[in-house]
């Protein structure tokens, strides 16, 4: 099983991004997904800057994949998309069918989590177009995944989002700008102020969602570390950790230790508790509401 780091979903300044990936180059991660997937207004790193980061990580022995923007609306979005899909050096994660059109039957690609692959027929179809890895939709359960795995096409790798605030929704509207009574076209790049996104609570103080520009995430942190044995048994090839403002390397390290069976999942999970910006959840994996947290009985005792 391999360990991946998903694309950075927040907007940080370039110095911080570069420092972050310098550290990631030294971390125990196998695959790194790079690029701006949320908002085309986030421009502190241009595509060429991302490619520079990609080269550094590649030199450090990491497999680098360039992730495409999820919501593609304008011709300029498409221009960037074409540059990414035409790059000769790195594999691409397609997060929109527009990206698939540009990659299909040309180069192998990764079918990203927003392509809505919910059944074996669609997975087979994408395999026929050149997908060599697919990332399961975040709301898919372990039971559904088991069905998918049974008829998985030859040579297809399966990746599961296993740690981080869940990217749940995308909009035309920017909720961070809205919070500041700004229009999206004049957002003053307020996302820069929220390194882990902006928490939305219910009126009785329950952290519920996270506003991240045009993206809405869960407030809770999806964490499948406690479900690791089931993940392993289901034949998942890659587990994905989503970057956060602090402790990402430490989290990757704990996943690596668990993956290599040097640390029991229960212990790793308890060590991770203080590294998470919010309480954990794993409901989706268990076929329940995503925000639920179902402790593994065995782990609950040992932890």
């Amino acid at each position, binding site marked *: 099983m391999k360990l991946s780091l998903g694309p950075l979903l927040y907007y940080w300044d370039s110095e911080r991004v570069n420092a972050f990936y310098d550290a990631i180059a030294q971390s125990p991660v196998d695959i790194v997904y790079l690029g701006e997937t949320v908002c085309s207004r986030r421009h502190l790193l241009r595509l060429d800057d991302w490619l520079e980061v990609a080269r550094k990580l590649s030199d450090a022995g990491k497999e680098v994949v360039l992730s495409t923007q*999820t*919501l*593609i*609306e*304008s011709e300029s979005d*498409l221009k960037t*998309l074409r540059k990414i899909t035409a790059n000769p050096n790195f594999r691409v994660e397609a997060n*929109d*069918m*527009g*990206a*698939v*059109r*540009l990659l*299909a039957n040309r180069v192998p690609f990764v079918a990203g989590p*927003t392509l*809505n692959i*919910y*059944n*074996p*027929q*669609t*997975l*087979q*179809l994408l395999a026929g177009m050149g997908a060599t890895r697919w990332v399961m*939709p*975040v*709301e898919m359960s372990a039971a*559904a995944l088991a*069905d*998918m795995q049974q008829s998985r096409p030859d040579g297809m790798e399966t990746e599961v989002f296993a740690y981080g605030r*869940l990217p*749940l*929704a*995308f*909009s*035309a*509207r920017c*909720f961070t700008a*809205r919070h500041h009574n700004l229009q999206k*076209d004049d957002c003053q790049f307020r996302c820069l102020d929220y390194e882990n996104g*902006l*928490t*939305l*609570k*219910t*009126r*009785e*103080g*329950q952290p*519920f*969602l996270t*506003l991240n520009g045009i993206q*809405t995430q*869960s407030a809770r942190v999806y964490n499948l570390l406690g479900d690791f044995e089931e993940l392993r048994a289901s034949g998942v090839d890659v587990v994905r950790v989503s970057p956060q403002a602090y402790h990402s390397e430490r989290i990757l390290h704990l996943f690596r230790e668990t993956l290599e069976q040097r640390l029991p999942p229960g212990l790793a999970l308890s060590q991770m508790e203080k590294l998470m910006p919010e309480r954990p959840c794993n*409901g989706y994996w268990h076929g*329940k*509401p*995503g*925000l639920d947290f179902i402790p593994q009985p065995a782990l609950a005792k040992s932890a």
Partner: protein
Amino acid sequence: MQPETRKFELVCPAGSLPALKTAVDNGADCVYMGFRDDTNARNFTGLNFDLNNAREGVRYAHAKGKKALLALNTYPQTSGWQRWTSAIDNAAELGMDAVILADPGLMQYAAKTHPQLRLHLSVQGSATNYEAINFYHEHFGIQRAVVPRVLALAQVEQLMSKTQVEIELFGFGGLCVMVEGRCALSSYATGDSPNTCGVCSPPKAVRWQETPNGLESRLNGILIDRYGKDENTGYPTLCKGRFDVAGETYYAIEEPTSLNTLELLPELMRMGVAAIKIEGRQRSPAYVAQVTKVWREAIDACRRNREQFAVKPAWMNELGKVSEGQQQTLGAYYRPWK
């Protein structure tokens, strides 16, 4: 390029046989409907069609020279593939004029098994650019795409210049602020989402509670809104509640409001939009009658004289009565809304 003289179809919701007949009688060019299960995105108890009702609905529409479309716009789950393919087979057998699909695997099945069946790309397919739309056209021959309610009008026009696929836009009704097909907020809170179960903020998860603080609406226990004595209440769709962000309580995602694009009609016709869609299969036949009637009148008036077209206050009044929270918006078509 889209010729601007093409048809401009009014596509109306039919959650039941009475609603379907009402839509046809009040001037719909097309009605869209779903079967009584999770193959469609309005999977609510008491709604939708069994085979007999569907047959009668298609017969009724065709007898009056109108079209019947079948919404099969959820994503087949691993455990029920056959439910979705049977629905396609039934649509072909019933003589539906088109099926509205979101799932590529299902499109492939439809294109192979029933090559004569016309395919529309559902809004749940999340196609917001011409590369995506052309992908579905090349691989499955889709002839029309319903575009998510996230694009500005200029973006729609730009997209239309780069595809031969007909474009259908939402004109009126409940407003999704998220890209359709890319929103899992409902399953995060309740376990069921549009993609997987054909529902958003499902009624079975809703609880109303009178408290000393006011009337509260909850979704699977999560407080969505709390109303003062004189406030209008609304269905607790989770993106339309009032929440606390950094100490400020407001509609952090979207107000309870309906999309209404009546004033854009001349522009939409000029652009060559093929069809305008009215949301609301979950609404009553009375809603369908009122909305269909107003839109029929407006479209006919605009056709007669596009330059002189003006929205009649009476139309806005009628639509206002059936709008969510009695509020209306142009949504993303009007860029500053974003």
